[in-house]
């Protein structure tokens, strides 16, 4: 048991660090932003694109992707090391997380060589930003119940319907899209997967305002949008299996980005706040509650070390990704609520000047309900752990073996 790099890993780390030191600014103490749902101004987008291009030119973009397509054919462990090193530097907003984290890996798994050569190099170099068009107003956890239709006309598909929760749709060149191509078969079998140009005629994008006023998401309406058949990924009717590849990558990227480090600050926070003239941290209930949060936060951190070990040995990561988001999001939400309560009547302020910790806990508490839903709700993740990890049976389904068009869908809203 040790936390040291192997000699190969150490050499790779040194190489990565050298390049970063020459090409990026080190992270300063005040640079840890809280940029949740910051507006994507043209300046933010062009800064992010310039950084991605710089990395791509030097062979440091999407390093696990094949060399032939602009990547580095690096191992998953080298990718972890790269991300660790990169996190010590001041970086622009990550507007590529969906494209690089989800769309790219899906194309690499299911796309034809022609499709990969067409899209991967520009995705990798940051020239094209990508988005995901999966969820619909009536299809969230039950994603396979989606109703957007695509009908074939010649060598094109005509697409109609609505998608929702699409991050960054306004700035994107391309999107990945799952649609229903056959309503007469059971729901999973009637789906197909496409790449759509977001500038196509018939696409209308409307931002959604979140409870924290940020506008990270959009509704996207499709009216007779035409998609050439050569933008279909995999066979007609095989869309669900392609979508699962995307979702698996999504949960891993959300799980790995959990900001649980802030919970450790609660000890200091409770030392600065007084209850009846005494530091809150001297109160036994406060101490025990904070200890509970830290124990879980460290548990998630230590679990990620086990995952890294598996990667380092060339083994697939375990199901910890689902656990990280499930445990981590609830944990952060509860701890944020607790920190707000410690502030007494000031807990419900959102004024940066007047609120302890510049209202960071309040902002987290407003952001966290979203994290509990994004990429699979708590309930979906519990099903995944129970069914895929523990081998428990799936629940009875009213739509099993039923053609999609005959599945009850509730009263019209």
């Amino acid at each position, binding site marked *: *048991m040790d*936390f*040291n790099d192997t000699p190969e890993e150490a050499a790779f780390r040194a190489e990565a660090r050298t390049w970063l030191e020459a090409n990026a600014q080190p992270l300063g103490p005040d640079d840890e932003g809280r940029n949740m749902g910051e507006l994507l101004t043209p300046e933010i987008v062009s800064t992010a694109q310039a950084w991605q291009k710089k990395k791509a030119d030097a062979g440091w973009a999407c390093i696990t992707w094949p060399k032939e397509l602009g990547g580095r054919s690096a191992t998953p462990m080298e990718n972890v090391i790269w991300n660790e090193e990169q996190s010590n530097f001041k970086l622009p907003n990550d507007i590529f997380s969906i494209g690089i984290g989800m769309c790219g890996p899906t194309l690499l798994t299911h796309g034809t060589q022609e499709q990969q050569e067409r899209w991967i190099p520009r995705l990798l170099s940051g020239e094209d930003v990508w988005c995901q068009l999966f969820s619909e107003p009536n299809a969230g956890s039950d994603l396979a119940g989606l109703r957007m239709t695509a009908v074939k006309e010649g060598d094109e598909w005509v697409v109609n319907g609505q998608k929702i929760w699409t991050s960054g749709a306004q700035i994107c060149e391309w999107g990945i899209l799952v649609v229903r191509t056959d309503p007469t078969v059971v729901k999973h079998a009637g789906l197909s997967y496409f790449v759509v140009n977001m500038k196509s005629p018939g696409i209308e994008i409307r931002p959604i305002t979140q409870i924290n006023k940020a506008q990270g998401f959009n509704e996207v309406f499709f009216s007779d949008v035409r998609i050439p058949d050569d933008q279909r990924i995999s066979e007609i009717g095989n869309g669900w299996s392609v979508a699962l590849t995307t979702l698996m990558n999504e949960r891993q990227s959300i799980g790995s980005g959990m900001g649980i480090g802030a919970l450790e600050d609660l000890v200091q926070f409770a030392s600065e706040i007084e209850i009846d003239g005494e530091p809150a941290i001297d109160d036994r209930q406060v101490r025990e509650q904070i*200890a509970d949060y830290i124990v879980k936060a460290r548990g998630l951190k230590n679990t990620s070390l086990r995952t890294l070990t598996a990667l*380092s040995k060339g083994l697939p990561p375990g199901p910890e990704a689902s656990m990280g988001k499930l445990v981590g999001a609830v944990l952060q939400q509860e701890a944020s609520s607790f920190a707000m309560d410690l502030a007494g009547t000031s807990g419900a302020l959102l004024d940066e000047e007047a609120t302890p910790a510049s209202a960071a806990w309040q902002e987290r508490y407003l952001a966290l309900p979203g994290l509990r839903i994004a990429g699979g709700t708590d309930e979906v993740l519990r099903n995944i752990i*129970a069914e895929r990890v523990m081998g428990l*049976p799936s629940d009875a389904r009213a739509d099993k073996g039923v053609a999609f068009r005959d599945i009850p869908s509730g009263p019209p809203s």
Partner: protein
Amino acid sequence: MNFDFSDEQKLLQQTARDYLEANSPLATCRAILEGDQSYAADLWKGAAEMGWQGAVVQEQYGGAEFGHLELAMIAYEVGRSLVPIPFGPSVYVATEAIIRFGSDAQKNMWLPKLAEGSAIGTFAFTEKPGQNGPSRADATVSGGKITGTKMPVADGADANVAIVAASENGEVGLYVVALDGEGVSRTALDSFDMSRGQAKLSFDSAACEKLDSADAAGIAKLLDVAATLQAFEQVGAAERALEITREFILGRYAFGKPIGAFQAIKHRMADLWCKIEIARSNAYYAAWALANDDPELSTAAAIARISACEAFEDTTVEMIEFHGGVGYTWEYDCHLFYRRAKLLSSSLGTPKYWKNLLIDRLQAQAAA
């Protein structure tokens, strides 16, 4: 990055599992729980033959000198099997204390016997309800004689030697007391987990020897070591309890399907799985700190203990609930786990106590 046990360590674990599966099914634990014997003497002997009691004892004292990571793997299997032997108190605390703080004479006197299992050791640190740690002791030492009462003492009726916390000139230290000597009386107490004995020890000018180098920091570290090793025992036992529960909910049908298909149950099973994995990861980290003598042990051991206590206890509570009525019967094994969970979470001080310790230590780290 290698945050995992080595193949050799896992092989040792597998050997321990094979031995215990063959020789200590849950019926063995039940036999001690129901019968007159206070522990399974043949298994205690078998364990010693495989070097378990001497896992961290140097070869010169007859130990196997495997190391703490190996001992952690053994502890895991001791936990999984609920084997009814006085392992933790003797190995994680008494033997460890003599290795850490003993003089050459004390080591020569006790380590060979502890390593070969011919002596059972224990730790006598609390005296009355409400106590969790050894920071205060009304038992006093004067002129090499100890007087006072300790309770509860794990395996106090069977142990041959106790490491006793007592005060001398107003300072708490650790003392070695041979329990077959004059001035020692023992009273067996009914134990919440009858597969593991507890007793009251009374000393009336009994002979004792101080462990000279056991200062307050050393005593705290001894308990950190014990908490870390016991966390493996707890995670092992929790994992087994979850496995048994899983089998049951797959085989039990209600409303036309296995009850394990109901989300009301499977979601809680998923939560238990997460708790156990978190406890496992925290135990790993504490084991790393222990094996590398890293100062992180002080917080890592507390974190490992808190999550292991809660994972094991929560799993056994749900275990009975998911079994339904039969889970509440004497005949089913659920209560063996339910009892052991509570025993292990009280024995080295409760999670509540360790949570306060954890915050103390985090504050000390931040101030340093």
